């Protein structure tokens, strides 16, 4: 398989190794792309997929390895972005890098340069003709002067692809797509995949990363599965006999033979006595398309799901940031009208920690003290004004009880490290002794020691009867912290994991695959 001289192999990578400090992201990974095929690169979080793409693109220099692109041999260690471009590798990232308010023609020209006459004035006619030809060739039903923002999502992705390939559409170019369908609704991704398939049938070599197993199976010829930085499986399809099954791929991704029974929807049993603290029934709104779940006092319930599954939207809707468009929401025994805002939900005993600490939690230029008391300002107010002495004392107590490392509570919040900021944000909410705590990616970008502190804090709150909902993409976090985990897919609860099933591997399987969930997804 590693005979690199064969003319029908567009890319052959062997022994690709890359370390970040002590972490080995890639450990001798290999990859072989046959010309004119769609190749799927699969793997769980942290399996090394993204690193491999970045090394191929020349964004990260690799440590060791050998690669052959269109017959050109090179060492991975010296591979640069310029080399990648010259060899014919073209990358389209999840963020397409399009300017929505500008026309398709301008978007194309901003990448390739405007055709100009003497005096640097733009030859618009020539540009439009070129772009019209490009749109024709890539079967995009749009006019060059149309703004990109007016296109359907799948068309936008195709424009990005056309732009990437405009100068190199000679069959030598290799198109690399990083999760092209991650943020697209189902029918849009179908349209996009069909278009990609047609390009491949015309001789285009495509490599794509995707988490949506069924799409991958529908469109890809070959499969490479990464696990812990190694390529653990290379499956050549093409013929009916060679096409792998979903269960097979998931087994490779988790590194063990897959038990078909595991991951099946089950009702969790422990500690669900009395009235539920949170009842969500058929909740709609934004990406939510009928979520139903309940949580009882003292429970820590995880929410897993891919990007766009409605993980974060579920939390923000419960907190009152977004209004639901339909469904029932009962918080702490009270039926919600759906019109309550954040303040109203806070009064009812709900607290929420956003996944975006810098953008949505931190008052960077205010002091740590002011950040801590932002959620309880009114409690320090009397006729003599704000009781700053009491406020400072209580801030100092919180700093101790939440193990926040800070020089003084009067220093700017921005001077704290990320982990300490997050502990302070959690403290800001727990001082209200909430009955329902919503955490979105509570330990994102948080160091190991702070993570342990935050877990301890959350467990202590749950032990006091607080209901905790944790949305996270970190399966290890979900399996260690939660009593049970619901898996969202396309805005509905797809499955639920408890007890022995609650492991990172099962979570990977449950979020990545759909054949494993029996019956209706609700």
């Amino acid at each position, binding site marked *: 398989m590693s005979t690199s001289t064969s003319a029908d192999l567009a890319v052959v990578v062997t022994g690709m190794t890359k370390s970040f400090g002590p972490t080995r992201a890639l450990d001798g990974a290999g990859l072989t792309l046959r010309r004119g095929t769609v190749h799927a690169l699969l793997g769980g979080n942290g399996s090394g997929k993204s690193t491999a793409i970045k090394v191929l693109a*020349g*964004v990260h*220099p690799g440590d060791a390895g050998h690669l052959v692109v269109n017959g050109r041999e090179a060492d991975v260690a010296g591979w640069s972005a310029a080399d990648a471009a010259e060899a014919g590798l073209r990358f389209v990232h999840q963020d397409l890098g399009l300017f929505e308010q500008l026309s398709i023609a301008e978007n194309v020209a901003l990448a390739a340069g405007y055709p100009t006459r003497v005096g640097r004035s733009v030859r618009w006619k020539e540009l439009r003709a070129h772009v019209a030809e490009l749109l024709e060739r890539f079967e995009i039903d749009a006019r060059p002067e149309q703004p990109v923002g007016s296109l359907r999502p799948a068309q936008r992705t195709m424009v990005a692809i056309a732009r990437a390939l405009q100068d190199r559409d000679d069959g030598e170019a290799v198109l690399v797509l990083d999760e092209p369908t991650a943020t697209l609704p189902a029918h849009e991704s179908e349209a996009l995949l069909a278009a990609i398939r047609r390009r491949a049938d015309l001789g285009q070599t495509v490599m794509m990363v995707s988490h949506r197993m069924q799409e991958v199976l529908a469109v890809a010829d070959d499969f490479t599965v990464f696990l812990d930085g190694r390529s653990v499986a290379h499956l050549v399809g093409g013929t009916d006999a060679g096409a792998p099954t979903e269960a097979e791929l998931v087994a490779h991704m988790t590194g063990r033979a897959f038990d078909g029974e595991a991951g099946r929807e089950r009702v969790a049993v422990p500690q669900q006595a009395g009235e539920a603290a949170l009842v969500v029934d058929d909740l709609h709104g934004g990406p939510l398309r009928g979520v139903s779940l309940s949580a009882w006092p003292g429970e820590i319930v995880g929410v897993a799901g891919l990007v766009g599954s409605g993980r974060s939207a579920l939390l923000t809707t419960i907190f009152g940031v977004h209004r639901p468009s339909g469904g029932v929401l009962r918080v702490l025994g009270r039926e919600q009208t759906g019109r309550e805002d954040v303040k109203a939900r806070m009064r009812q005993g709900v607290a929420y920690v956003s996944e975006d600490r810098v953008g949505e939690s931190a008052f960077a230029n205010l002091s740590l003290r002011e950040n801590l008391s932002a959620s309880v300002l009114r409690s320090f*107010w009397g006729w003599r004004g*704000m009781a700053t002495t009491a406020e400072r004392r209580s801030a100092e107590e919180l700093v101790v009880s939440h193990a926040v490392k800070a020089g003084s509570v009067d220093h700017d919040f921005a001077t704290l*490290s990320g982990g300490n900021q997050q502990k302070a944000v959690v403290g800001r909410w727990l001082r209200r002794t909430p009955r329902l705590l919503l955490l979105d990616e509570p330990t994102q970008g948080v*160091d190991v020691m702070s993570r342990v502190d935050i877990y301890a804090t959350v467990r202590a709150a749950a032990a006091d009867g607080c209901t905790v909902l944790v949305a996270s993409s970190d399966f290890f976090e979900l399996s260690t912290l939660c009593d049970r985990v619901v898996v969202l897919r396309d805005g509905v609860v797809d499955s639920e994991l408890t007890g022995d099933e609650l492991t990172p591997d099962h979570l990977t399987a449950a979020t990545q695959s759909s054949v494993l969930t029996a019956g209706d997804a609700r």
Partner: protein
Amino acid sequence: MSTSVTSSRGAGTADAAAGSGTPESPGTAPTTGGRAGRAGRPRRGHDLRGLAEKNALLVLLLGVVVFFSVLPASSERFATSENLAVILGTQATVALLALAVVLPLVSGYFDFSLGANAAASGVLAAGLMSKEDMSLAVACVVCLVFGSLVGLFNGVLVTRFGLNSFVTTLGVATLLGGLIQWYTGGQTILVGISPALVDFGSINVYGVPAVVYVVLLVALVLWYVLTHTPYGRSLYAIGANPRAAKLVGIRTERYVTASFVLAGAVAALVGILQLARTGSATADSGNSLLFPALAAAFLGATAVRPGFFNVVGTLIGVLFVSITVSGLTVASAAAWVSPVFNGAALLAAVGLSTYLGRARGRAS
């Protein structure tokens, strides 16, 4: 090629560091506990710099006072109680307008219509008394309501409809300027203005013009509101991070709108005081008041609580500019010196507060 490798290598390591989580910096001071106590806080160096930062403008102000008191050209007439009364009396309206300007600025919004709002309120008060024969009290109330409504209009446009505050309030200012022209017909309103009001504008109490006490009273109220109520603290939180403010339950749209309304009411009071001082209402757009007020607000943001617009700093800012200008006038400096000084002081203030890295003024 080699350069691109080096630069991307740097990016790689940075990514890796971020990915593995930021380890605790060994340089951070140990946890502050209740037991560590306020006395034991290790912040001497930090404190000295902060102290200098906080009081720089005040020291500068005292320096200016001393300078003009000893300068032979001005020493005789500068440091007299008469001159002080003149300065305070003429600057009272600027000071009050500067306080109005500060309110929306705290949460990051400009209101350029406050000068025109003040001018329109003054004209309206004069007109109501001279043309409609309204009593002073009724005219004042109508004016305050008018000023508040203009603020409400601005606030709703800026928060509910998300319009840019800079452009919106500039538009409202222009519009008000036009309405003033229409209402007065370009004429100065001289007759029919309540003598009680004009008297109030000219009397001194304990050697200080009476209007100054009004300014001090309003300043005291606004200082309390901004620093000692949950509302004021919320406005600063909105200025620091509007999205985070919303997520801690602050009703940001309502709060910001309220700050525009409050500022509008204060601007209306400025118009009434201006009328009291001059005894007449001219068809003026009010911009001659607004610019020194803005300058004072930005100067004030470098003092007392550096990086944040605040009441006390703003008052110091007004005094700094007006005392310097007075000194220059008394020393018979040429007419162009004052505006040049004002402009330079404003540029220095904005530069300084940006340099401190914490300029509130989100030019939205």
